């Protein structure tokens, strides 16, 4: 360590420097504290993005922009052999699920086309399309994960099969349960990911109510809360569609 001899006449200068440094310490601590208090008091966005102070939401949206730019459709979620798939698949919520819509004929899939035409699709029409299976580590935003096995139709195949090419150029796809209580909004790129499926099977068995019978979304590039169970309606928008958890303070993008 460097040591320098300082003449006694310089001591007041150092005394002054010490004071300035100490005052700076107090000042910066105070500024930090004031900034923190300010942030805690900021109201949430009044629209479909709620629950957390507006500046934090802006921060999450900046992250979303950054990671959307980095996102690559060709990066696949790791898949596992069938033997690794859980038999006892965790159920983590039943919001918007209704036993009366778990079977046909009360259930059918409504697709709102952008020319205000409405498609009414039966499960058999979906099951006729080529089947895609995905066995992946399902990740919940709570922090747990579990390998699970799903079967259904690729969402991108579905959109092609029902001539929804024009709809696929929209920025977002929105989904809701038949009672519209649970909703998700998903950016189109993630929706068109090759492992995003409309699932009607789990472990090669038809879906049961707790897992979203008769048809649910499985989107492995997002946290589990985007994989809406018991899809009632699908629609398309260039603005962010309503999202059950986003309005409660969670990240809208939720991309993994």
């Amino acid at each position, binding site marked *: 360590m460097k040591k320098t001899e300082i003449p006694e006449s310089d001591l007041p200068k150092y005394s002054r420097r010490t004071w300035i440094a100490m005052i700076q310490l107090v000042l910066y601590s105070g500024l930090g504290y004031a900034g923190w208090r300010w942030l805690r008091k900021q109201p949430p966005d009044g629209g479909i993005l709620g629950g*957390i102070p507006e500046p*934090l939401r802006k921060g999450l949206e900046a992250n979303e922009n950054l990671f959307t730019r980095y996102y690559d459709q060709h*990066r696949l979620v790791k898949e596992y052999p069938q033997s690794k798939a859980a038999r006892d698949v965790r159920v983590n919520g039943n919001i918007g699920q209704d036993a009366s819509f778990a079977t046909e004929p009360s259930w059918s899939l409504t697709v709102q086309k952008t020319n205000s035409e409405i498609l009414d699709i039966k499960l058999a029409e979906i099951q006729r399309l080529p089947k895609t299976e995905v066995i992946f580590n399902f990740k919940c935003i709570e922090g747990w*994960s579990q390998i699970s096995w799903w079967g259904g139709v690729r969402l991108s195949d579905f959109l092609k099969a029902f001539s929804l090419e024009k709809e696929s150029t929209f920025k977002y796809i929105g989904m809701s349960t038949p009672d519209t209580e649970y909703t998700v909004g998903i950016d189109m790129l993630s929706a068109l990911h090759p492992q995003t499926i409309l699932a009607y099977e789990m472990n090669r068995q038809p879906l049961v109510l707790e897992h979203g019978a008769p048809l649910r979304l499985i989107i492995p590039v997002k946290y589990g809360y985007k994989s809406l169970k018991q899809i009632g309606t699908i629609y398309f928008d260039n603005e962010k569609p309503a999202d059950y958890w986003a309005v409660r303070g969670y990240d809208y993008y939720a991309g*993994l």
Partner: protein
Amino acid sequence: MIWSGVLIYWANDVYEIRIGNLVLFNFFPEWFYKLFNLPYRLSEGMAYHFVFMWLFFINGALYVIYTLVSGEWKYLIPQKNSLAESLQVIRHNLGLIKTLPPQTKYNGAQRIAYTMIVIMGLGSILTGLAIYKPVQLQWLTNLCGGYEAARAEHFFLTIGYVLFFFVHLFQVIRAGWNNFRAMVTGYEIESSKEEPK
């Protein structure tokens, strides 16, 4: 970051220290969550965590760049004798020996601690990214030993910071006002004259 991290961890608090079936400590006991008002704040925790991560990252990067450019790193990286020296420092702190080994700006224990903390910081960034984007950064998640392993590593690094913090705080208090003043100002003034006794 630690506060918001615990808000997140609460939602799936699975870690514990145990020997066989004997649980020594579980992270965290109920009283701990209650004391700091932590339950049911997952969304809030995530929002703070993923915004403030930028500030902490920039702060850490500036610190490392500064130590490299200023040459201060020479006082901070461990030397050949640092490990032996740090054992002597610990023995001194425990009151087992009277004299401290000769040192420059920092002693061997400090050199090891201050270098470790930078490596841990890098570890937190990497394990954090591995759980934040396990699909887009899959190579990184694999490097950490998988998604669940990365989460555990991220958690236990944080426990490391908490231990560091308490030891650091204790040592600063022990070293006294003159040392604290030097921490803030960057210099220490010693009298070259013999103090009258």
